[in-house]
């Protein structure tokens, strides 16, 4: 989106349609090229230098291929639990950041399997309803809960159409250094934000999925036209779950 816009300073005062058209086309053409040393029209997905804030030139997302996701395999869930120090319990009162879901087409009997987690919406309903602005979307599209200001009202849990959020009911001990969690706050998939801030490579679930040889989860920058995920979503038909809600999710599905 950003790289497709003409430079307004150049276009100022020369508003003939041909010139404007020319500027638009050329700016599309040079998108991605370095316009000066160290200056890029879009940011290549890579680790940010320490001290740099997350940028909206990047939008992190995932593409999940239900065709490759094996029924009965739970590796992504286990990896998430280990990475983030979750108990792994599946009671209503246990935190679950990612769940395996099985869908059965009752007409054909076709069963498909997929992991379900926070969809990291562009227009997240959880952020809309949060009374304390604890729910927020980071510049790079990751939807998070700032537990310092979360009052545990759970309005976001009601607003989320994906049932992606959990409430911490009990006192916790032995949290991970990089994943602080505590009683009385709401939490959900962070898209492994601590990993992304470190190297921007992959999430625990995607890593576990490739390790198991399924490669059903593809993580990457949706704003970078050269990233694997962007190439893939350009090439094949993919779906956003509950696309009718117009949330523009960062997590997309293939083969459902």
């Amino acid at each position, binding site marked *: 989106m950003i790289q497709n816009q003409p430079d307004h300073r150049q276009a100022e005062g020369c508003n003939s349609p041909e010139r404007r058209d020319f500027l638009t086309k050329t700016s599309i053409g040079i998108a991605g090229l370095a316009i000066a040393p160290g200056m890029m029209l879009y940011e290549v997905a890579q680790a*940010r230098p*320490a*001290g*740099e*804030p*997350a940028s909206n030139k990047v939008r992190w997302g995932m593409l999940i291929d239900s065709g490759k996701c094996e029924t009965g395999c739970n590796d992504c869930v286990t990896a998430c639990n280990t990475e983030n120090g979750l108990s792994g319990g599946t009671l209503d009162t246990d935190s679950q950041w990612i769940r395996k879901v099985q869908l059965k087409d009752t007409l054909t009997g076709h069963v498909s399997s997929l992991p379900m987690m926070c969809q990291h919406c562009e227009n997240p309903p959880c952020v809309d309803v949060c009374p304390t602005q604890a729910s*927020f979307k*980071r*510049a*790079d599209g990751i939807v*998070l809960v*700032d*537990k*310092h200001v979360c009052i545990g009202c759970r309005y976001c849990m009601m607003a989320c159409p994906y049932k992606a959020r959990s409430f911490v009911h009990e*006192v*916790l001990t*032995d*949290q*991970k*250094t*990089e994943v*602080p*969690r*505590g*009683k009385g*706050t709401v939490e959900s998939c962070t898209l492994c*934000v601590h990993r992304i*801030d*470190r190297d921007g490579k992959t999430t625990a679930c995607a890593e576990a999925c490739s390790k198991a040889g399924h490669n059903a989860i593809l993580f990457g920058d949706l704003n970078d036209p050269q990233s694997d995920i962007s190439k893939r979503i350009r090439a094949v038909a993919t779906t956003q779950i509950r696309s009718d809600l117009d949330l523009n999710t960062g997590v997309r599905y293939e083969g459902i």
Partner: protein
Amino acid sequence: MKMVIRIAALLLSVWIASSAHAAESHEFPKLDIGKGGQCVEDPQLMRRIHMDLIKHQRTETMRLGIRGGKYSLAECVECHASTKTNSVVGSNEAFCQGCHAYAAVKLDCFECHSTKRKQPLEAAKTAETGK
């Protein structure tokens, strides 16, 4: 009336003298400073404003994703966790808990944040002696 004022003045001087005496014989907490070494700021300054520094940093890290700054709670723990228990809480000698108990200030950080070093120090020691 004058008598009342005199008694009050006497009582006040006795009270000041006794409290001054109390301050002299007061026991400060004996803290296990962990690894110790050079702090990111002057210790006297840290005693006063560490909470402001890490609160500022928490907002930057949480909201903006800025990591690797000068001030960080994880780094506090990394240096100051006890060399024995590997934790900054758990007893009144522990670095954070000891001082907070002394100052009667509630310590909320560790309801969510880890109180321990990522890598226990003992492991580091064994690795060193093994060389």
